[in-house]
């Protein structure tokens, strides 16, 4: 376990990403220190409504805000986290995969956890989840492409772009 970066005593349970201007900082914190900074842990059921959370995104204190700042769209429908912030609604089912990590943080705040324990959809269980894997691969390639362009590795970038085009049909 990583120790909490604030008290250096307890184990870190949550990751707090803060965006100040152009600077993004990530802190790994224990439940107590996270709570002191206003970030609930999975064990704390909060009644904060979606609207309040979306408003808080504007203050840049959540991973969703950090992701929203990058503006990477959902590979399937093209919706961005900025769109989600404006409407409170996702664009398609694949947005749940594209924005999986930041949404997890939102679910903790809204529902007190992220794991569905109710009825499981049999068709999905039988078929596996190939579409989610595909979306994750597309997101990974896009990120690698962006890094390659930034680092001016143009041959690699061209190869990644071709692979991405292949996947996006």
């Amino acid at each position, binding site marked *: 376990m990583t120790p909490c970066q604030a008290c250096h005593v307890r184990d870190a349970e949550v990751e707090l990403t803060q965006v100040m201007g152009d600077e993004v900082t990530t802190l790994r914190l224990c439940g107590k220190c996270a709570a002191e900074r206003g970030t609930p842990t999975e064990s704390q*059921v909060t*009644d904060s409504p*979606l609207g309040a959370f979306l408003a808080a995104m504007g203050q840049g204190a959540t991973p969703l805000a950090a992701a929203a700042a990058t503006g990477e769209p959902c590979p*399937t*429908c*093209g*919706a961005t986290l900025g769109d989600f912030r404006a*409407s*409170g*609604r*996702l*664009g*398609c*089912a694949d947005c*749940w*995969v594209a924005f999986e990590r930041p*949404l997890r943080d*939102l*679910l903790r705040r*809204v*529902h*007190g*956890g*992220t*794991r*569905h*324990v*109710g*009825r*499981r*959809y*049999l*068709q*999905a269980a039988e078929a596996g*989840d190939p*579409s*989610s894997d595909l979306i994750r691969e597309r997101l990974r390639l896009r990120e690698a492409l962006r890094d390659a362009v930034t680092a001016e590795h143009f041959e690699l970038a061209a190869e990644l772009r071709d692979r991405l085009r292949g996947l996006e049909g």
Partner: protein
Amino acid sequence: MTDSVGGGGEDDLPWLAASGPWADLVVSTRVRLARNLVGVGFRGRNSEADREGVLEQVQAAAADAPSLAGATLHRLDPLPLEGRQWLQERQLVSRELAGLDPGGRATGGGAVLVAGAVAVMLNEEDHLRMQGLRSGFALDEALADAERADGELGARLSFAFHPEFGYLTACPTNVGTGLRASVLIHLPGLVLTREIAKVLQGLAQVGLTYRGLYGEGSAVLGNLFQLSNQTTLGKSESELLDHLGRLVRQVMECEIQARDVLRRDAAAVLDDQVWRAWGVLSHARAVTFDELVELLSGVRLGVSLGILPPLPLGTMNRLLVLAQSAHLARAAGTSLEDEALAVHRATLVRRLLADEGRAR
């Protein structure tokens, strides 16, 4: 399956029949499950053609589903305002899908499939919203209705499901089970003893929320509150219902205690109020819907406490729908703009009371 342009039996409202458990306090129970189809964008990111596709897929699946094969399909977009409002007054579609808000219009491809106590709303915020609607306090029965439709349609369609998050919805407040259960409960005792704010605050702390008669954003009228679960993820369907059911029972106990307090400490005022409500209800020649619901609250309380002579709960419940504008306009062969709707409403009330031998 039969298509409809907004027709249907005027009195086909079994959920208002007051035949269910605790019908004295609870008007009705609703359980809805939100589902979306794989490969189609949510509203806001889908086209009219996508929504028509959803409609076609669901219609084909329903035609093959035993409990939905005889369902009636009401498409909203070809209907005039009155027809859309008529469906909304019967709690079959949301205000939003029906495009009832000022300047609103019906969503293209918006529709509802109705089969007995089950209604499947199509192309709302989520592609499918399946609801079971029952009389009285009947969470398990309403869930069974919705789950039957879910099972039959889910076997014939591909619903979006995530291994961790469960059933995927357009709004994160519905993800997981996609289940929202709500109980429409009459709480005049708690309102009159001013205990209601405390009770509602307590409910909010344990994950319940309340709305008015017509769902999200609607005002509380006639001391009727819709109590429902706020979270949909992290608990199973039966745990969510148990939690809501337990709390509703506690609220019912508080309401009964509040009525005892009123009877003990404010008998004269209570007597006066319920008799006044009865007087106006049975003699008014023009009444607005909001006023009617407030009057019905007083009469309902008076009948329940034995202050007023008995009057069937089903008659009072049915007025909650039949005395609304689109129902009145249709029954009177007039329009929503008719200035005499308040007069038609009062006439309907007196006619129903006369049927019970209670007014002229």
